[in-house]
């Protein structure tokens, strides 16, 4: 047998430097894919936010945002979602330390805060419908429900992923060296949070002018 061929066939443990060569970027493909996905999500939510801004103040029949919005109530929801971002990073820090008890506590806390947010959104939607605003009522109803509804669906998907992580952890299938799984779910969760930061400002806090972005 050729000597060089024999060398190639010799099994050996790869060093860290050799491991680094196993993807073309030297980075984990799955994390890169998540960031590319989040970049594309900017376009999705950008389209929905732009549509809302484009049609804000152009409804010819009520109810109008000023008739319905309760800033105090929505502010509490915003604090809840921000708090969930904190518990999410604490969950990641816990698994990176190998502290599986705290990992489960923080993951459950994040999921519960997410459920609180969604519960608040369901209550808000229900009260708006009672006030006469539906998807078909006017331009405000259509653009508002589509934008915040899409965001709510994203939060719900995030909650399902968080509960899946808790189940995996309880089953012993989420060891410390799988921390990247938690990190990826965390990236998704934080993205949902930053989208809400924009929605809270653009939809709730900026007052509606007559077809323009002007103060009351």
């Amino acid at each position: 047998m050729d000597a060089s061929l024999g060398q190639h066939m010799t099994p050996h443990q790869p060093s860290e430097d050799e491991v680094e060569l196993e993807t073309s970027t030297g980075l984990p493909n799955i994390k890169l894919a998540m960031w590319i996905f989040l970049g594309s999500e900017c376009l999705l939510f950008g389209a929905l936010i732009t549509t809302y801004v484009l049609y804000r103040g152009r409804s010819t029949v009520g109810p109008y945002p000023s008739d319905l919005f309760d800033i105090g109530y929505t502010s509490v929801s915003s604090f809840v979602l921000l708090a969930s971002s904190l518990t999410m990073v604490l969950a990641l820090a816990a698994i990176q330390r190998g502290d599986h008890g705290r990992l489960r506590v923080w993951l459950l806390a994040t999921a519960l805060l997410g459920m609180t947010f969604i519960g608040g959104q369901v209550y808000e939607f229900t009260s708006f419908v009672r006030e006469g605003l539906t998807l078909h009522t006017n331009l405000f109803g259509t653009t508002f429900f589509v934008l915040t509804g899409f965001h709510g669906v994203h939060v719900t998907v995030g909650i399902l992923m968080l509960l899946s992580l808790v189940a995996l952890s309880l089953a012993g299938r989420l060891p410390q060296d799988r921390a990247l799984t938690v990190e990826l779910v965390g990236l998704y969760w934080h993205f949902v949070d930053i989208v809400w930061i924009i929605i809270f400002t653009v939809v709730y806090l900026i007052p509606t002018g007559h077809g323009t972005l002007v103060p009351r």
Partner: protein
Amino acid sequence: MSVEDPDRVTTAATQDAPDPAVRSRLARRSRSRHPSDAEYIRIALILAAITGAEIAVYYLDSVKSLLIPLLFTFAAIKFALVALWFMHLKFDNKLYARFFTAGILFALTVYAIVLLTFRVFASS
């Protein structure tokens, strides 16, 4: 400060690494570059304070003329804090930030053109 980039670990970090020892070593390296729990809590408190300020300026009549610039500034700061600290863009490989920023800039450019085309920012 020069920090070794633990994401340059590829297969181990993608969880396909055949050797658990390699995965563990790389997980330890990954942990070392992320902020401490105390720093996360500090960032969360700053985010809460900014949100409080947003709500305050919404109700203050004295800053009505500056309301929209102030609100956008606050939102931008909160966005950056979450992305840089909680999503670790400040600490991770810059390629992630480039992909994410590309998505944001592309979206901003496209939708700014749409809004300008429809004269959304024109005074009535």
